[in-house]
């Protein structure tokens, strides 16, 4: 039986491992390679590594960090941030990532998704969609690391991306990011039900129960978390953790 996946996310800003709240206020977490090493030793099923200001700051793809992180990973690695060209993707895949995540270019240059999918296979291409709720209560896609409004509906974008050949969607709620208030189930369900490809829910995980909720009620194939796996206790001590296999299985089996 295919298991639902719970995946830690690591965010890189200017070469440093950080954690954000609502895509802002980055707190320093440490060395990304050591964090990956610890997650590997905890036997996490997958790891997501994103460069969160690559597009905004227009700096080169973080190949060096991806290589060193991937060397510590006996599990698949998805990496993204600032991808603009086929060559960027090739470099990341050659650096050890199994999948690449494309965000801004999926909106500004959707043909890149089609070309990437046909060159590297759809299973290597993840489209990452950052979403914020508008004042009117609708959902809107943002690009450029959550700083630029597009007016686009995430469901429409997800459907288009599947048509273009994306193999997976990574759906981020900017509003819930770092808040530990739970995933935005309404958003996740809307988008997940509209596509036939796997969807990873991101943004808001506060407890292990949230994974079960977003997978069963939100129809997500997988769930990712950042804060939950790097902070501990009321003083937000930096400490990497991950539930045991038994804890996850027990939680995910509860509908």
């Amino acid at each position: 039986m295919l298991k639902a996946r719970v995946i830690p996310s690591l965010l890189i800003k200017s070469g440093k491992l950080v954690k954000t709240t609502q895509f802002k206020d980055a707190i320093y977490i440490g060395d990304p390679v050591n964090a990956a090493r610890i997650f590997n030793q905890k036997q996490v099923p997958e790891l997501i590594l994103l460069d969160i200001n690559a597009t905004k700051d227009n700096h080169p793809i973080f190949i060096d960090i991806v290589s060193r992180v991937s060397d510590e990973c006996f599990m698949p690695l998805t990496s993204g941030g600032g991808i603009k060209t086929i060559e960027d993707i090739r470099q990341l895949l050659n650096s050890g990532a199994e999948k690449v995540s494309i965000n801004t270019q999926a909106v500004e240059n959707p043909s890149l998704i089609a070309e990437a999918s046909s060159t590297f296979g759809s299973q290597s291409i993840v489209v990452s969609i950052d979403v914020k709720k508008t004042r009117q209560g609708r959902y809107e896609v943002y690009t450029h690391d959550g700083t630029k409004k597009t007016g686009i509906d995430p469901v429409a974008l997800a459907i288009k991306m599947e048509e273009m050949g994306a193999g997976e969607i990574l759906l981020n709620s900017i509003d819930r990011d770092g808040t530990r208030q739970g995933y935005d189930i309404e958003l996740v369900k809307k988008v997940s039900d509209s596509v036939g490809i796997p969807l990873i829910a991101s943004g808001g995980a506060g407890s292990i129960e949230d994974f079960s909720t977003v997978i069963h009620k939100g129809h997500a194939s997988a769930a990712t978390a950042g804060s939950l796996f790097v902070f501990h206790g009321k003083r937000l001590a930096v400490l990497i953790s991950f539930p045991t296999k038994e804890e996850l299985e027990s939680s995910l089996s509860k509908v």
Partner: protein
Amino acid sequence: MIVIVDYGMGNLRSILNKLQRMSEDVIVSSDINAIEQANKLVLPGVGSFETGMANLQERCLLSVLKWKVLEENTPILGICLGMQLLTLSSEEGDVEGLGWIDGETKQFNLGEHHSSLRVPHMGWNSIDIHRESPILHGVHSDSEFYFVHSYHVCCRADSSVIATTNYGYEFASVIQKERIYGTQFHPEKSHGNGSSILKNFIERA
């Protein structure tokens, strides 16, 4: 010497990194001479069947691989697309495969009964072992591995199917014919179970 065949497909760095932890004599190469010297071969692969075969052709690797595997009986491990290329053909594209395993590569046909199952088959799933194989030494049924693929292999001979995995229906996840091995999953990305497969290939295949 173990040679990981570089034909422009697949996560070479990951496989090299993991194999180098187990053996000092591993290289990545697309060089015919290097492949000729290999004691063992690894055929990785991520991407399309058509592109995979085209790349092998373009790099003039078909003859040397055929000679090594069919004449010299050099053990070869095909991973993911690499396993699919071992078959006669694929529904993806209109191209012949290496044809060393009597079978075809087909798209997942999940139909109405499994409409909730998404393609690609992506994530951790378990294997059900049907036959013994050197590369499965010490590995048990229900062991989990990482899969990511939209097509799977259908063998004409049951004897080639060492282990199956369920995704809507049972499909071949580990195949073997003599010294030709294939895993649909990525052992280099499957933690300890995957490491066992790689170690077994180095030491027992």
